[in-house]
């Protein structure tokens, strides 16, 4: 058997070269994941204002549109952030899809028997967890942003919209289940992103696990508290 060589020809604009590689895609997935985690955290913290008073959260919603104060026209900064979020989500999904397809091709034959030693539920359900979360996000936007959800929807009144939506038990349950799945997804993602970006120091590596546990717990507990509070009648 003689040797054959595969010439490596990658001479493009650096980002395309970089993004074409799987390691580059993983980096993009990690960075966009970090952006999305940041958004989720801010979103959850903002919504906690629900517990202060209806006015507090409605004012918070309004002030998001006023971001940037008098420096930029009203809602422009919010739109820039939204576009950023959409771009991050797009790349997160695109890299996930292409890498999953690549990985399927790289392991065409299944083992008859396989006992996993390290891979866990979280790491092995990333793609399906991701798909369900994406579907949930669409529903969630339709329900509480665009007002297609069927419940009484009044633009600019997040408190009332939320209470109206979560008062329906199936919606509340779906929301809770989706957030639990999100937690599982976040747990592997928040740990894994350190590896993908290459942030690694054996002295602090244990903290990466705690960070992943912490961030997913905080976001999930915060998020599911809303439908529970509505259902329990604490808010409403």
């Amino acid at each position, binding site marked *: *058997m003689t*040797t054959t*060589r*595969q010439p*490596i020809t*990658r001479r493009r604009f*650096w980002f395309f*070269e*970089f993004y074409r*590689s*799987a*390691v*580059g*895609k*993983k*980096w993009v997935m990690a960075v966009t994941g970090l952006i999305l985690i940041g958004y989720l955290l801010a979103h959850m913290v903002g919504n906690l204002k629900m517990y202060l008073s209806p006015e507090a959260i409605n004012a918070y919603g309004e002030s998001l549109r006023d971001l940037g104060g008098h420096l930029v026209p009203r809602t422009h900064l919010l739109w820039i952030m939204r576009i950023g979020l959409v771009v991050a989500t797009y790349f997160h999904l695109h890299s996930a899809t292409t*890498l999953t397809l*690549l*990985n399927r*091709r*790289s*392991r*065409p*034959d*299944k*083992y*008859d*028997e*396989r*006992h*996993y*030693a*390290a*891979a866990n539920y979280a*790491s*092995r359900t*990333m793609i399906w967890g991701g798909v369900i979360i994406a579907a949930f996000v669409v529903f969630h936007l339709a329900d509480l942003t665009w007002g297609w959800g069927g419940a009484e929807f009044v633009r600019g009144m997040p408190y009332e919209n939320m209470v109206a939506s979560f008062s329906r038990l199936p919606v509340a349950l779906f929301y809770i289940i989706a957030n639990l799945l999100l937690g599982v997804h976040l747990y*592997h993602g928040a*740990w*894994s992103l*350190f*590896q*993908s*970006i*290459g*942030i*690694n120091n*054996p002295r602090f*590596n244990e903290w990466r696990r705690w960070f992943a546990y912490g961030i997913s717990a905080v976001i999930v507990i915060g998020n599911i508290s809303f439908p529970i509070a509505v259902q329990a009648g604490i808010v409403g």
Partner: protein
Amino acid sequence: MDLTLRVWRQSGPGDKGRFEEYPAPGIASHMSFLEMLDIVNERLTLAGVEPIAFDHDCREGICGTCGLMIDGRPHGPWEGTATCQLHMREYHDGDTITIEPWRAKGFPHIKDLVVDRRAFDRIVEAGGYITVSAGSAPDANLIPIPKEAAEYAMDAAACIGCGACVAACPNGAAQLFVAAKYSHLSLLPQGQPERWSRAEAMVDTMEHYFGSCSNHGECEAACPKNISLDFIALLNRDYIRAKWKNRRLAGQS
């Protein structure tokens, strides 16, 4: 003890392959797993059945030739152990053992339990070396290397290139192998001049054959030399850095 083997038989890349069951009576507990296979093969030969092809050579866990998926675990149930070092005292009378080859696109099938792992060599050929022609090296003690760095490089260099990491990876990725070879060289001062081109060349070649790492950690668990996932982080970081490094300005770093 009396055992039953379920072994993957496949005459070549064109064959679909199937499991065959073979009885393995009278196996002693002090035998190694491969000695058990030797005995089964001798009996098969005498019975007129072509013996099972499997890869092995040094039988002391260092050459990296052997590699079987045993009951769904690469190299079998013992942690940090190559197939050849697994011994039959692990098993009990009446057990059935399922034996499969490594399965990954990067490892095309050759025969029965033998696969082609030469993609690993292509990756090393792309950059897994330090260029130094014979006779041109300076005195060995010219550059002191902190003991910790030398030891850590050795941790990575302990890789035997068996391919268990690829076999274990649900994505058929070779990140742990490549990270080990890359880290070994790039942690040492001698490896610095070619560091960034090495990162790019090795990763790009790797991706030609293998899937991508999604940080399951199966590779680390399967590795007979307990190579750490930490090296994968180093490889990823260096690949990213290599993309924006301006080598003319990077100097020694």
